[in-house]
């Protein structure tokens, strides 16, 4: 009796197990699966215009002026608007809440004419006074409260270094800003999503209250925020641009693990997924229910050489590193061809890019010659810092480091790969503790200054110039370019700057990558923006 019971039980278990195993063994990858029945995915027609956007991290705040991380801007760019906008696919300056603008001859006065009849989500009128209140709020703050305001506009109200002197309203629809000195990328800075115009009624209730209850003029209104889980925004039915937005709702869902995010996209649980590994791009392209989007590149991945640490204090050694590394193999192996080889510290899409520069070819023999010329014919030993986290500009730091290690071994240099947890890595690198380190940068406003000055000028040693590279000629050029309002003259200055950097070789520039986003086939109107913050007002399900 008892034996029979056990047999029955065992048989059951066997059945369950074999079903599971059969499931594991079934053929995959044809993407012919039916979507989950109770996912509520009926995207045919306009029955359900709810978009679920899967991403790697949650926002820190919903007040874009108070934070520095991209996950916040991805959401706020849809809640708020700025006086000026970037172009749909680039960082050209376009009308935003200001329909026209005018610059004085000396570059010190900017006059903005505002859109009329615009209201904030809470019913407050958008007008010149509201703009003034926003700028006053920032100018009366401090660097730890409004970090971007201080880094883009030089400082606050009484700071001698500040760029913005006064912001005044003239009537209801005109705002005049005066500057203490000309600032070439001023209009681009104004278009950055951190300088979003918020409802004064809302932020006057207190900053801490406001960052959880955002009120702007944007195409979507805030609904709810479940920390580390979802942020939900819905259609602003009173939006001033006729016919927009097309979606009823957008839900930003946090899925930290890249593979899990891809699984969720394949499964239909989310409609868009950013941070797709280059290796998974083909899979999405091959799936007839999905489409792959490429974000225009506005980044650079590089190997920095700390010039204060011998032997990288010698120019020949730094150049030798440039000849020694086989960039093409790295691009083919780890970027799946979705990146361009880099020769300058900024991508070609940025105004002022010097295309006349001749890239260092892969030439180990030449590298050995240069080492010999520097008195290092027998090579040397060094630490090679590998990035511990995937970033858009560096999908797999550890593996790329192994290729570089092999390349260096070929010229007699012994590289020991070291890695630290990300915050530690940045902290130690900024103190100049690395011999050579992998790092990268994604631009904020599409301006050359935001790459070259931020990453290689002596003013930024100790913050973003981790190489400790210092060059007086370069510094002069970069400072001059900051106030040069004539576009052609300014580009000329940057071209000269890139020549110096190329010759001096504080970096081995590696790649300008194209970040990937996967989406459902039925999505239309989605255009990934190079800044990484995508405006979703034109997106809809067909």
């Amino acid at each position, binding site marked *: 009796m*008892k034996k029979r019971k*056990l047999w029955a*039980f*065992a048989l059951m278990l066997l059945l369950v197990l074999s079903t*599971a195993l059969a*499931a*594991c063994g*079934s053929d*995959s990858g044809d993407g012919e*699966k039916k979507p*989950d029945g*109770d*996912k*509520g995915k009926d995207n045919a027609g306009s029955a*359900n215009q709810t978009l*679920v956007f899967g991403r790697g*991290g949650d926002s*820190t*705040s919903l007040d874009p002026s108070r*934070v*520095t*991380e991209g996950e916040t801007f991805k959401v706020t760019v849809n809640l708020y608007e700025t006086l000026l906008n970037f172009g749909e696919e680039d960082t050209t300056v376009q009308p935003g809440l200001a329909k026209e603008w005018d610059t004085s001859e000396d570059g010190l006065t900017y006059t903005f004419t505002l859109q009329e009849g615009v209201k904030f989500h809470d019913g407050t009128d958008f007008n010149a006074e509201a703009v003034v209140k926003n700028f006053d709020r920032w100018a009366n703050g*401090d*660097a*730890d409260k409004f*970090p*971007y305001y*201080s*880094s883009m506009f030089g400082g606050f109200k009484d700071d001698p270094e500040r760029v913005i002197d006064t912001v005044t309203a003239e009537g209801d629809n005109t705002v005049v800003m005066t500057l203490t000195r000309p600032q070439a990328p001023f209009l681009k800075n104004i278009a950055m999503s951190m300088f979003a115009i918020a409802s004064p009624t809302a932020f006057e209730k207190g900053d*801490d209250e406001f960052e959880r209850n955002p009120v702007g003029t944007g195409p979507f209104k805030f609904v709810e925020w*479940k*920390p*580390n*889980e979802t942020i*939900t925004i819905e259609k602003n039915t009173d939006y001033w641009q006729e016919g927009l937005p097309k979606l009823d709702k957008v*839900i930003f*869902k*946090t*899925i*930290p*693990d890249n*593979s*899990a995010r891809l*699984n*969720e996209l*394949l*499964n239909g*649980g989310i409609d868009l997924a950013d941070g797709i590994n280059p290796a998974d791009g083909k899979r999405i392209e091959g799936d007839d229910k999905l489409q792959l989007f490429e974000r225009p590149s506005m980044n650079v991945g590089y190997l920095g050489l700390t010039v204060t640490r011998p032997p990288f204090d010698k120019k020949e050694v730094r150049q030798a590193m440039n000849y020694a590394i086989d960039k093409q193999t790295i691009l083919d192996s780890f970027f799946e061809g979705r990146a361009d080889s880099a020769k300058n510290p900024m991508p070609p899409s940025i105004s002022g890019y010097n295309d006349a520069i001749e890239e260092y070819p892969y030439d180990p023999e030449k590298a050995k010659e240069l080492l010999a010329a520097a008195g290092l014919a027998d090579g040397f030993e060094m630490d090679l810092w590998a990035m511990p986290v995937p970033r858009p500009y560096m999908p797999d730091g550890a593996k790329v480091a192994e290729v570089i290690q092999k390349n260096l071994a070929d010229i007699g240099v012994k590289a020991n790969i070291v890695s*630290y*947890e*990300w*915050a*530690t890595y*940045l*902290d130690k690198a900024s103190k100049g503790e690395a011999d050579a380190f992998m790092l990268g*940068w994604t631009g*904020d406003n599409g301006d050359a200054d935001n790459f070259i000055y*931020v990453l290689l000028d002596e003013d930024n040693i100790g*913050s*973003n110039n981790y190489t400790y590279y210092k060059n007086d000629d370069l510094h002069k050029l970069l400072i001059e370019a900051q106030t040069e309002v004539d576009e052609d003259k300014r580009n000329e200055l940057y071209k000269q700057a890139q020549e110096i950097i190329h010759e001096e070789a504080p970096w081995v520039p590696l790649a300008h990558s194209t970040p990937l986003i996967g989406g459902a086939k039925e999505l239309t109107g989605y255009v990934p923006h190079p800044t990484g913050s995508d405006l979703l007002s034109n997106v809809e399900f067909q």
Partner: protein
Amino acid sequence: MLSYIIKRLLQLVPVLLGMTFIVFLIIRAIPGNPAQVILGQQATPEAVAALTAKLGLDQPWYIQYFDYLGGILKGDLGDSMRTRLPVADEIWPYLAATLELALFAIIIAVIVGINAGIISAWFQNSWFDYTAMILALVGVSMPIFWLGLMGQWAFALELQWLPTTGREEVRDPITAITNLYVIDTIIQGRFDQLWQVIRHLILPGLALATIPMAIIARMTRSSMLEVMRSDYVRTARAKGQKMFWVVYKHALKNAIIPVLTIIGLQMGMLLGGAILTETIFAWPGIGRYIYEAINYRDYPVIQSGILIVAFIFVMINLVVDLLYGLIDPRIKYD
């Protein structure tokens, strides 16, 4: 009994105090300035210095420690540096998410583990015994993240039976009351949503349950085998008792004590395993909350988060100790 509980609770004070001290020192030994991390790569050195001062990080460590301790005694767990909210206010939803998942996992682990162990012991050296023990060995050795991704691939992608990530169907969000979604949906009478919550629990729950399930099964088996050889079991058999009752009533009672200890320890381990599971399954729980706080160097959150987890851990141990007495009256508390 009551005096025993009070004594035990008093003993907790130095344990938790020592723990806050150790955690405090360890996280400050990690390189990386929270102010720098919060302000990002763009920050000017002046801004970093200003925020460092504002957060009180320029004070000597012992002053910082006593400030923190003083706060705790007043019931103030500090404010998160990143979100600027009091930790005490923001921690509950994360804790609730983890508790729901961990309870689900431990229930599965206990039910399956104990029964598998009993059957293995009952039919020692049968093929069931061998199969169960091999599976247990595999289960113990399986990395959670691999198991989790495989589970997603098999049941969510290939079979389309279960959802991949999260706690709820985001297109039909649940209104949080207690933040324990099983309870919230029942309160609101939304049984369709309750079904969704359970479906979301299954994959991460199983991934989290695998290791404790295997450990409980092995412990139960060895403990049962020992008891089955004892005289009183033979006596019960000789009296003509049904084997089923002998095993599940007489033998199990004595065999369960060491298993309880293991279950208590495993519940503590679950809180650790939760970090990986929560990352793979995008589960907004306390493991990920603390993990992200470590990445951001959010000191108050790391300190208080670990303090709360430790508190839960020691409370579980206390409950286990009290259960011994209920099961085996010979165990005395004095």
